[in-house]
Protein backbone atom coordinates (compact mmCIF):
# COMPACT_ATOMS: atom_id res chain seq x y z
CA UNK A 1 0.00 0.00 0.00
CA UNK A 2 3.04 2.14 0.15
CA UNK A 3 2.60 2.90 -3.53
CA UNK A 4 -0.58 4.87 -2.95
CA UNK A 5 0.86 7.06 -0.26
CA UNK A 6 2.53 10.38 -0.57
CA UNK A 7 4.19 12.10 -3.42
CA UNK A 8 4.59 9.02 -5.49
CA UNK A 9 0.86 8.61 -5.78
CA UNK A 10 0.36 12.21 -6.78
CA UNK A 11 3.14 12.03 -9.35
CA UNK A 12 1.84 8.73 -10.63
CA UNK A 13 -1.68 9.95 -11.08
CA UNK A 14 -0.42 13.13 -12.67
CA UNK A 15 1.58 11.12 -15.16
CA UNK A 16 -1.43 8.93 -15.85
CA UNK A 17 -3.61 11.96 -16.33
CA UNK A 18 -1.13 13.46 -18.74
CA UNK A 19 -0.93 10.24 -20.69
CA UNK A 20 -4.70 10.00 -20.87
CA UNK A 21 -4.86 13.58 -22.05
CA UNK A 22 -2.24 12.95 -24.68
CA UNK A 23 -4.09 10.02 -26.15
CA UNK A 24 -7.41 11.84 -25.96
CA UNK A 25 -6.08 14.93 -27.70
CA UNK A 26 -5.67 13.65 -31.26
CA UNK A 27 -9.02 11.92 -31.04
CA UNK A 28 -10.64 15.18 -30.00
CA UNK A 29 -8.88 17.07 -32.74
CA UNK A 30 -10.02 14.53 -35.31
CA UNK A 31 -13.55 14.79 -33.99
CA UNK A 32 -13.49 18.58 -34.29
CA UNK A 33 -12.07 18.42 -37.79
CA UNK A 34 -14.76 15.99 -38.85
CA UNK A 35 -17.42 18.25 -37.40
CA UNK A 36 -15.90 21.26 -39.14
CA UNK A 37 -15.89 19.64 -42.55
CA UNK A 38 -19.37 18.20 -41.97
CA UNK A 39 -20.68 21.67 -41.14
CA UNK A 40 -18.94 23.35 -44.03
CA UNK A 41 -19.87 20.61 -46.47
CA UNK A 42 -23.51 20.52 -45.44
CA UNK A 43 -23.86 24.28 -45.85
CA UNK A 44 -22.12 24.17 -49.22
CA UNK A 45 -24.23 21.27 -50.50
CA UNK A 46 -27.41 22.96 -49.25
CA UNK A 47 -26.61 26.02 -51.37
CA UNK A 48 -25.57 23.95 -54.41
CA UNK A 49 -28.76 21.87 -54.29
CA UNK A 50 -31.16 24.72 -53.56
CA UNK A 51 -33.46 25.84 -56.40
CA UNK A 52 -32.44 29.52 -56.18
CA UNK A 53 -30.89 31.20 -59.25
CA UNK A 54 -27.16 30.91 -59.85
CA UNK A 55 -26.37 34.54 -59.02
CA UNK A 56 -27.98 34.17 -55.61
CA UNK A 57 -26.06 30.95 -55.00
CA UNK A 58 -22.84 32.78 -55.68
CA UNK A 59 -23.74 35.51 -53.22
CA UNK A 60 -24.53 33.01 -50.51
CA UNK A 61 -21.43 30.93 -51.08
CA UNK A 62 -19.02 33.85 -50.87
CA UNK A 63 -19.09 34.46 -47.08
CA UNK A 64 -19.03 30.70 -46.50
CA UNK A 65 -15.81 30.37 -48.47
CA UNK A 66 -14.19 33.37 -46.87
CA UNK A 67 -14.98 32.03 -43.44
CA UNK A 68 -13.92 28.42 -43.97
CA UNK A 69 -11.10 28.57 -46.49
CA UNK A 70 -7.72 30.07 -45.59
CA UNK A 71 -7.30 31.91 -48.88
CA UNK A 72 -4.34 33.99 -47.64
CA UNK A 73 -2.39 30.90 -46.64
CA UNK A 74 -3.16 29.16 -49.93
CA UNK A 75 -2.09 32.29 -51.82
CA UNK A 76 1.23 32.45 -49.99
CA UNK A 77 1.79 28.76 -50.62
CA UNK A 78 1.04 29.11 -54.32
CA UNK A 79 3.55 31.88 -54.79
CA UNK A 80 6.21 29.54 -53.38
CA UNK A 81 9.74 30.85 -53.38
CA UNK A 82 8.66 34.08 -55.07
CA UNK A 83 6.78 35.16 -51.94
CA UNK A 84 10.11 36.18 -50.44
CA UNK A 85 11.17 37.91 -53.65
CA UNK A 86 7.99 39.96 -53.96
CA UNK A 87 7.86 43.46 -52.45
CA UNK A 88 5.25 44.05 -49.69
CA UNK A 89 3.10 45.96 -52.20
CA UNK A 90 3.32 43.10 -54.69
CA UNK A 91 2.43 40.63 -51.95
CA UNK A 92 -0.62 42.65 -51.03
CA UNK A 93 -1.75 43.09 -54.60
CA UNK A 94 -1.16 39.43 -55.37
CA UNK A 95 -3.19 38.21 -52.38
CA UNK A 96 -6.06 40.50 -53.39
CA UNK A 97 -6.02 39.12 -56.93
CA UNK A 98 -5.63 35.57 -55.71
CA UNK A 99 -8.78 35.93 -53.57
CA UNK A 100 -10.71 36.88 -56.66
CA UNK A 101 -9.26 34.13 -58.83
CA UNK A 102 -9.98 31.45 -56.25
CA UNK A 103 -13.51 32.65 -55.57
CA UNK A 104 -14.18 32.80 -59.33
CA UNK A 105 -12.88 29.27 -59.73
CA UNK A 106 -15.18 27.99 -57.00
CA UNK A 107 -18.30 29.92 -58.01
CA UNK A 108 -17.86 28.85 -61.65
CA UNK A 109 -18.34 25.28 -60.54
CA UNK A 110 -21.59 25.98 -58.71
CA UNK A 111 -23.79 25.78 -61.78
CA UNK A 112 -22.35 22.43 -62.82
CA UNK A 113 -23.85 20.45 -60.02
CA UNK A 114 -27.31 19.73 -58.77
CA UNK A 115 -28.50 17.00 -56.48
CA UNK A 116 -25.09 16.29 -54.99
CA UNK A 117 -24.40 14.66 -51.65
CA UNK A 118 -21.24 13.77 -49.83
CA UNK A 119 -19.97 11.33 -47.24
CA UNK A 120 -17.03 11.77 -44.91
CA UNK A 121 -14.56 8.97 -44.36
CA UNK A 122 -11.37 8.74 -42.36
CA UNK A 123 -9.62 11.65 -40.69
CA UNK A 124 -5.84 11.22 -40.72
CA UNK A 125 -2.86 13.35 -39.82
CA UNK A 126 -0.99 14.86 -42.72
CA UNK A 127 2.07 16.64 -41.44
CA UNK A 128 0.85 19.48 -39.19
CA UNK A 129 -2.56 19.41 -40.82
CA UNK A 130 -5.37 16.96 -40.94
CA UNK A 131 -6.66 15.18 -43.99
CA UNK A 132 -10.34 14.27 -44.30
CA UNK A 133 -11.45 11.70 -46.88
CA UNK A 134 -14.65 12.73 -48.58
CA UNK A 135 -16.69 11.25 -51.40
CA UNK A 136 -18.81 13.47 -53.57
CA UNK A 137 -21.77 11.77 -55.19
CA UNK A 138 -23.18 13.44 -58.31
CA UNK A 139 -26.11 12.19 -60.31
CA UNK A 140 -25.17 10.14 -63.40
CA UNK A 141 -21.48 10.44 -62.69
CA UNK A 142 -19.08 8.17 -60.89
CA UNK A 143 -18.48 9.22 -57.28
CA UNK A 144 -15.43 11.44 -56.81
CA UNK A 145 -13.17 10.78 -53.86
CA UNK A 146 -11.05 13.60 -52.50
CA UNK A 147 -9.14 14.65 -49.43
CA UNK A 148 -9.71 17.95 -47.70
CA UNK A 149 -6.67 19.28 -45.91
CA UNK A 150 -7.61 21.21 -42.79
CA UNK A 151 -5.14 23.46 -40.99
CA UNK A 152 -5.44 25.04 -37.61
CA UNK A 153 -2.54 27.46 -38.14
CA UNK A 154 -4.80 30.52 -38.23
CA UNK A 155 -6.36 29.66 -34.86
CA UNK A 156 -9.52 28.11 -36.23
CA UNK A 157 -10.00 25.16 -38.55
CA UNK A 158 -9.78 26.17 -42.17
CA UNK A 159 -9.47 24.38 -45.49
CA UNK A 160 -6.02 24.86 -47.04
CA UNK A 161 -6.04 22.28 -49.82
CA UNK A 162 -8.11 19.76 -51.72
CA UNK A 163 -6.52 16.62 -53.14
CA UNK A 164 -8.36 14.94 -56.00
CA UNK A 165 -7.10 11.82 -57.80
CA UNK A 166 -3.84 12.18 -55.97
CA UNK A 167 -3.15 15.72 -57.15
CA UNK A 168 -3.04 18.55 -54.63
CA UNK A 169 -4.74 21.64 -55.99
CA UNK A 170 -2.45 24.10 -54.26
CA UNK A 171 0.73 22.25 -55.26
CA UNK A 172 -0.40 22.08 -58.88
CA UNK A 173 -1.25 25.77 -58.75
CA UNK A 174 2.12 26.60 -57.20
CA UNK A 175 3.96 24.77 -59.96
CA UNK A 176 1.85 26.55 -62.55
CA UNK A 177 2.64 29.95 -61.05
CA UNK A 178 6.31 29.35 -60.41
CA UNK A 179 6.84 28.00 -63.91
CA UNK A 180 5.09 31.06 -65.33
CA UNK A 181 7.18 33.45 -63.26
CA UNK A 182 10.40 31.58 -64.07
CA UNK A 183 9.63 31.81 -67.79
CA UNK A 184 9.01 35.52 -67.42
CA UNK A 185 12.44 36.30 -66.01
CA UNK A 186 11.56 35.65 -62.38
CA UNK A 187 9.37 38.71 -62.32
CA UNK A 188 6.43 38.56 -59.89
CA UNK A 189 4.90 41.55 -61.69
CA UNK A 190 4.34 39.30 -64.72
CA UNK A 191 2.21 36.97 -62.64
CA UNK A 192 0.24 39.88 -61.20
CA UNK A 193 -0.47 41.15 -64.70
CA UNK A 194 -1.50 37.69 -65.85
CA UNK A 195 -3.89 37.33 -62.92
CA UNK A 196 -5.34 40.77 -63.72
CA UNK A 197 -5.90 39.66 -67.30
CA UNK A 198 -7.49 36.45 -66.09
CA UNK A 199 -9.93 38.34 -63.88
CA UNK A 200 -10.72 40.84 -66.64
CA UNK A 201 -11.47 38.04 -69.10
CA UNK A 202 -13.51 36.09 -66.63
CA UNK A 203 -17.07 35.78 -67.81
CA UNK A 204 -19.26 34.98 -64.85
CA UNK A 205 -22.03 33.49 -66.95
CA UNK A 206 -19.81 31.07 -68.82
CA UNK A 207 -21.48 28.22 -66.97
Amino acid at each position, binding site marked *: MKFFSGRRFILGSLALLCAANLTALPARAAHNTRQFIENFGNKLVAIVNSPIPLSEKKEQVLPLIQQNVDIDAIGRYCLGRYWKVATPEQQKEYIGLFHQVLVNAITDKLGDYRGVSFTIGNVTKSGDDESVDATLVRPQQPPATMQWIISNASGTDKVVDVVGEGA*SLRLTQRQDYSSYIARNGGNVGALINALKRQIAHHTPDAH
Partner: protein
Amino acid sequence: MNSGRNGKRIRPRGQAHNAQAIQGTSASRRFSPRRAGLVLSVLALAGCSSIEAPVPKDPDALEDYKQANDRYEPLNRKVYNLTMKFDKWALRPVAKAYVWAVPHPVRNSLGNMITTMNEPSVFFNDVGAGRPRRAGDAFARWCINMSVGIGGLIDVAKMAGFPHHDNDAGLTMANWGVPSGPYLFLPMGPSSFRDGIGYGIDQGLSPWNYVPRGYGLISFNWAYNMMGVVHGRSEHLDDLDALQRDALDPYATIRSAYQQQRKAQAEAIKNDHRATVPLWYHVKNRQQG
Protein backbone atom coordinates in the same frame (compact mmCIF):
# COMPACT_ATOMS: atom_id res chain seq x y z
CA MET B 1 -8.10 11.06 -68.46
CA ASN B 2 -8.62 7.64 -69.78
CA SER B 3 -6.93 7.10 -73.07
CA GLY B 4 -9.09 4.18 -73.78
CA ARG B 5 -6.60 1.41 -73.77
CA ASN B 6 -4.16 1.43 -71.00
CA GLY B 7 -5.63 3.44 -68.24
CA LYS B 8 -5.16 6.93 -66.97
CA ARG B 9 -3.55 9.56 -69.04
CA ILE B 10 -4.21 13.23 -69.14
CA ARG B 11 -3.99 13.16 -72.88
CA PRO B 12 -4.93 10.21 -74.95
CA ARG B 13 -2.10 8.25 -76.41
CA GLY B 14 -3.80 8.46 -79.67
CA GLN B 15 -1.43 9.76 -82.19
CA ALA B 16 0.77 6.72 -81.91
CA HIS B 17 -2.11 4.66 -83.14
CA ASN B 18 -2.80 7.13 -85.91
CA ALA B 19 0.75 6.83 -87.06
CA GLN B 20 0.26 3.10 -87.23
CA ALA B 21 -2.77 3.58 -89.42
CA ILE B 22 -0.65 5.27 -92.01
CA GLN B 23 2.07 2.64 -91.90
CA GLY B 24 -0.38 -0.15 -92.21
CA THR B 25 1.51 -3.46 -92.10
CA SER B 26 0.96 -5.74 -89.18
CA ALA B 27 4.67 -6.02 -88.44
CA SER B 28 5.05 -2.31 -87.94
CA ARG B 29 2.02 -2.39 -85.74
CA ARG B 30 3.45 -5.03 -83.52
CA PHE B 31 6.69 -3.24 -82.96
CA SER B 32 5.31 0.27 -82.90
CA PRO B 33 6.73 1.10 -79.46
CA ARG B 34 10.19 0.45 -80.80
CA ARG B 35 9.40 2.62 -83.76
CA ALA B 36 8.12 5.36 -81.48
CA GLY B 37 11.40 5.10 -79.60
CA LEU B 38 13.30 5.47 -82.85
CA VAL B 39 11.34 8.54 -83.84
CA LEU B 40 11.97 9.96 -80.40
CA SER B 41 15.69 9.41 -80.55
CA VAL B 42 15.86 10.94 -84.03
CA LEU B 43 13.96 13.92 -82.69
CA ALA B 44 16.34 14.05 -79.77
CA LEU B 45 19.39 14.01 -82.04
CA ALA B 46 17.92 16.63 -84.35
CA GLY B 47 17.45 19.09 -81.57
CA CYS B 48 20.55 18.16 -79.63
CA SER B 49 21.55 21.69 -78.82
CA SER B 50 18.35 22.57 -77.02
CA ILE B 51 16.86 19.47 -75.53
CA GLU B 52 18.26 19.83 -72.04
CA ALA B 53 17.30 22.61 -69.69
CA PRO B 54 20.25 24.35 -68.00
CA VAL B 55 20.65 23.46 -64.33
CA PRO B 56 19.95 26.59 -62.27
CA LYS B 57 22.56 27.81 -59.79
CA ASP B 58 20.28 29.64 -57.37
CA PRO B 59 19.46 27.14 -54.56
CA ASP B 60 15.73 27.98 -54.53
CA ALA B 61 15.52 27.67 -58.30
CA LEU B 62 17.44 24.41 -58.08
CA GLU B 63 14.83 23.12 -55.64
CA ASP B 64 12.06 23.89 -58.14
CA TYR B 65 14.10 22.30 -60.93
CA LYS B 66 14.51 19.11 -58.93
CA GLN B 67 10.87 19.01 -57.99
CA ALA B 68 9.74 19.41 -61.59
CA ASN B 69 12.10 16.55 -62.58
CA ASP B 70 12.05 17.82 -66.15
CA ARG B 71 15.56 17.69 -67.55
CA TYR B 72 14.42 17.70 -71.14
CA GLU B 73 11.98 20.55 -70.74
CA PRO B 74 12.84 22.36 -74.01
CA LEU B 75 12.27 19.18 -76.02
CA ASN B 76 9.16 18.30 -74.04
CA ARG B 77 7.70 21.72 -74.64
CA LYS B 78 8.21 21.34 -78.37
CA VAL B 79 6.44 17.99 -78.38
CA TYR B 80 3.73 19.46 -76.17
CA ASN B 81 3.12 22.36 -78.56
CA LEU B 82 2.96 20.05 -81.55
CA THR B 83 0.60 17.69 -79.77
CA MET B 84 -1.65 20.55 -78.72
CA LYS B 85 -1.74 21.85 -82.25
CA PHE B 86 -2.76 18.44 -83.51
CA ASP B 87 -5.33 18.28 -80.74
CA LYS B 88 -6.76 21.67 -81.53
CA TRP B 89 -7.20 21.06 -85.25
CA ALA B 90 -7.88 17.34 -85.37
CA LEU B 91 -8.51 15.34 -82.23
CA ARG B 92 -10.62 17.81 -80.26
CA PRO B 93 -13.04 18.59 -83.11
CA VAL B 94 -13.44 14.89 -83.84
CA ALA B 95 -14.09 14.17 -80.16
CA LYS B 96 -16.63 17.00 -80.05
CA ALA B 97 -18.38 15.64 -83.11
CA TYR B 98 -18.43 12.21 -81.50
CA VAL B 99 -20.10 13.60 -78.38
CA TRP B 100 -22.58 15.50 -80.54
CA ALA B 101 -23.45 12.56 -82.78
CA VAL B 102 -23.41 9.59 -80.41
CA PRO B 103 -25.92 9.48 -77.55
CA HIS B 104 -24.62 9.18 -74.02
CA PRO B 105 -25.71 5.58 -73.31
CA VAL B 106 -24.02 4.38 -76.48
CA ARG B 107 -20.82 6.23 -75.64
CA ASN B 108 -21.00 4.73 -72.18
CA SER B 109 -21.23 1.22 -73.61
CA LEU B 110 -18.33 1.84 -75.97
CA GLY B 111 -16.33 3.12 -73.01
CA ASN B 112 -17.14 -0.07 -71.12
CA MET B 113 -16.01 -2.14 -74.06
CA ILE B 114 -12.72 -0.29 -74.35
CA THR B 115 -12.06 -0.69 -70.62
CA THR B 116 -12.94 -4.38 -70.69
CA MET B 117 -10.76 -5.08 -73.68
CA ASN B 118 -7.80 -3.62 -71.83
CA GLU B 119 -8.42 -5.91 -68.84
CA PRO B 120 -5.81 -8.55 -69.88
CA SER B 121 -3.09 -5.94 -69.69
CA VAL B 122 -4.36 -4.80 -66.28
CA PHE B 123 -4.44 -8.43 -65.16
CA PHE B 124 -0.83 -9.16 -66.16
CA ASN B 125 0.31 -6.01 -64.44
CA ASP B 126 -1.59 -6.85 -61.26
CA VAL B 127 0.13 -10.23 -61.27
CA GLY B 128 3.46 -8.51 -61.87
CA ALA B 129 2.86 -6.16 -58.98
CA GLY B 130 2.01 -9.16 -56.78
CA ARG B 131 -1.54 -8.04 -56.01
CA PRO B 132 -3.70 -11.18 -56.24
CA ARG B 133 -6.92 -9.45 -55.26
CA ARG B 134 -6.55 -6.89 -58.02
CA ALA B 135 -5.52 -9.55 -60.52
CA GLY B 136 -8.56 -11.62 -59.55
CA ASP B 137 -10.83 -8.62 -60.04
CA ALA B 138 -9.37 -7.91 -63.48
CA PHE B 139 -9.67 -11.58 -64.45
CA ALA B 140 -13.27 -11.82 -63.26
CA ARG B 141 -14.10 -8.57 -65.04
CA TRP B 142 -12.69 -9.92 -68.29
CA CYS B 143 -14.55 -13.24 -68.07
CA ILE B 144 -17.89 -11.75 -67.00
CA ASN B 145 -17.93 -8.75 -69.32
CA MET B 146 -16.70 -10.55 -72.41
CA SER B 147 -19.47 -13.16 -72.06
CA VAL B 148 -22.50 -11.90 -70.16
CA GLY B 149 -21.57 -8.31 -70.88
CA ILE B 150 -21.67 -8.93 -74.65
CA GLY B 151 -18.05 -8.29 -75.51
CA GLY B 152 -17.73 -5.68 -72.78
CA LEU B 153 -20.54 -3.40 -73.89
CA ILE B 154 -22.29 -3.80 -70.54
CA ASP B 155 -20.26 -3.59 -67.36
CA VAL B 156 -21.92 -6.54 -65.63
CA ALA B 157 -18.81 -7.19 -63.56
CA LYS B 158 -19.22 -3.87 -61.80
CA MET B 159 -22.75 -4.78 -60.78
CA ALA B 160 -21.42 -8.13 -59.55
CA GLY B 161 -18.93 -6.40 -57.25
CA PHE B 162 -15.85 -6.22 -59.45
CA PRO B 163 -15.36 -2.53 -60.20
CA HIS B 164 -12.70 -1.49 -62.67
CA HIS B 165 -9.27 -0.40 -61.51
CA ASP B 166 -6.39 0.88 -63.54
CA ASN B 167 -2.94 -0.56 -63.81
CA ASP B 168 -0.14 -0.38 -66.33
CA ALA B 169 3.44 -1.49 -66.62
CA GLY B 170 4.73 1.93 -65.50
CA LEU B 171 2.93 1.51 -62.18
CA THR B 172 4.06 -2.09 -61.88
CA MET B 173 7.66 -0.99 -62.28
CA ALA B 174 7.04 1.79 -59.76
CA ASN B 175 6.01 -0.91 -57.32
CA TRP B 176 9.19 -2.79 -58.02
CA GLY B 177 11.06 0.33 -56.98
CA VAL B 178 12.06 1.49 -60.46
CA PRO B 179 12.45 5.30 -60.30
CA SER B 180 10.40 7.31 -62.76
CA GLY B 181 13.36 8.97 -64.44
CA PRO B 182 12.95 12.43 -65.97
CA TYR B 183 9.55 13.62 -67.11
CA LEU B 184 8.72 13.20 -70.80
CA PHE B 185 5.94 14.63 -72.88
CA LEU B 186 5.27 12.08 -75.59
CA PRO B 187 2.85 12.51 -78.49
CA MET B 188 0.42 10.29 -76.61
CA GLY B 189 0.53 12.39 -73.47
CA PRO B 190 2.53 13.15 -70.34
CA SER B 191 4.90 10.37 -69.36
CA SER B 192 8.33 9.64 -67.96
CA PHE B 193 11.19 7.36 -68.92
CA ARG B 194 9.71 4.59 -66.83
CA ASP B 195 6.13 5.13 -67.94
CA GLY B 196 7.19 5.42 -71.57
CA ILE B 197 8.90 2.03 -71.38
CA GLY B 198 5.83 0.77 -69.54
CA TYR B 199 3.67 1.91 -72.42
CA GLY B 200 5.70 -0.28 -74.76
CA ILE B 201 5.38 -3.24 -72.40
CA ASP B 202 1.62 -2.72 -72.20
CA GLN B 203 1.39 -2.92 -75.97
CA GLY B 204 3.09 -6.30 -75.73
CA LEU B 205 0.72 -7.44 -72.98
CA SER B 206 -2.42 -6.56 -74.88
CA PRO B 207 -3.71 -9.57 -76.80
CA TRP B 208 -5.25 -7.32 -79.45
CA ASN B 209 -1.83 -6.66 -80.87
CA TYR B 210 -1.55 -10.39 -81.67
CA VAL B 211 -4.73 -10.86 -83.66
CA PRO B 212 -4.19 -13.04 -86.73
CA ARG B 213 -4.63 -11.71 -90.24
CA GLY B 214 -7.96 -12.16 -91.89
CA TYR B 215 -11.46 -12.52 -90.49
CA GLY B 216 -11.69 -8.73 -90.39
CA LEU B 217 -9.94 -8.76 -87.03
CA ILE B 218 -7.31 -6.30 -88.09
CA SER B 219 -9.89 -3.82 -89.26
CA PHE B 220 -11.63 -4.35 -85.98
CA ASN B 221 -8.39 -3.65 -84.15
CA TRP B 222 -7.97 -0.39 -86.04
CA ALA B 223 -11.49 0.65 -85.30
CA TYR B 224 -10.90 -0.24 -81.68
CA ASN B 225 -7.69 1.78 -81.46
CA MET B 226 -9.15 4.84 -83.11
CA MET B 227 -12.29 4.50 -81.06
CA GLY B 228 -10.22 4.34 -77.87
CA VAL B 229 -8.40 7.54 -78.77
CA VAL B 230 -11.49 9.52 -79.69
CA HIS B 231 -13.49 8.20 -76.77
CA GLY B 232 -10.66 8.89 -74.34
CA ARG B 233 -10.40 12.44 -75.59
CA SER B 234 -14.17 12.96 -75.48
CA GLU B 235 -14.20 12.18 -71.77
CA HIS B 236 -11.92 15.10 -71.05
CA LEU B 237 -13.23 17.81 -73.30
CA ASP B 238 -14.34 20.08 -70.46
CA ASP B 239 -11.38 19.27 -68.19
CA LEU B 240 -8.79 20.11 -70.81
CA ASP B 241 -10.65 23.20 -72.00
CA ALA B 242 -10.81 24.46 -68.42
CA LEU B 243 -7.15 23.68 -67.89
CA GLN B 244 -6.10 25.52 -71.04
CA ARG B 245 -8.22 28.48 -70.03
CA ASP B 246 -7.32 28.71 -66.34
CA ALA B 247 -3.69 27.67 -66.17
CA LEU B 248 -1.06 30.30 -66.81
CA ASP B 249 1.36 27.62 -67.96
CA PRO B 250 -0.76 24.60 -68.99
CA TYR B 251 2.38 22.59 -69.72
CA ALA B 252 3.61 22.96 -66.13
CA THR B 253 0.15 22.29 -64.73
CA ILE B 254 -0.21 19.05 -66.67
CA ARG B 255 3.30 18.03 -65.63
CA SER B 256 2.58 18.66 -61.97
CA ALA B 257 -0.82 16.95 -61.97
CA TYR B 258 0.53 13.95 -63.88
CA GLN B 259 3.49 13.42 -61.57
CA GLN B 260 1.37 13.69 -58.44
CA GLN B 261 -1.27 11.42 -59.86
CA ARG B 262 1.16 8.70 -60.86
CA LYS B 263 2.75 8.80 -57.44
CA ALA B 264 -0.64 8.46 -55.76
CA GLN B 265 -1.64 5.61 -58.08
CA ALA B 266 1.55 3.70 -57.32
CA GLU B 267 1.03 4.31 -53.60
CA ALA B 268 -2.55 3.04 -53.81
CA ILE B 269 -1.38 -0.23 -55.38
CA LYS B 270 1.40 -0.57 -52.84
CA ASN B 271 -1.03 -0.10 -49.95
CA ASP B 272 -3.64 -2.46 -51.31
CA HIS B 273 -3.44 -5.42 -48.96
CA ARG B 274 -6.99 -6.61 -49.36
CA ALA B 275 -7.72 -10.30 -49.07
CA THR B 276 -8.11 -12.34 -52.21
CA VAL B 277 -11.76 -13.18 -51.65
CA PRO B 278 -14.24 -10.57 -52.83
CA LEU B 279 -16.35 -8.48 -50.50
CA TRP B 280 -19.60 -10.44 -50.91
CA TYR B 281 -17.87 -13.52 -49.51
CA HIS B 282 -17.24 -11.77 -46.20
CA VAL B 283 -20.75 -10.36 -46.11
CA LYS B 284 -22.21 -13.79 -46.71
CA ASN B 285 -20.03 -15.32 -44.02
CA ARG B 286 -20.96 -12.63 -41.56
CA GLN B 287 -24.63 -13.19 -42.23
CA GLN B 288 -24.27 -16.91 -41.73
CA GLY B 289 -22.07 -16.58 -38.68
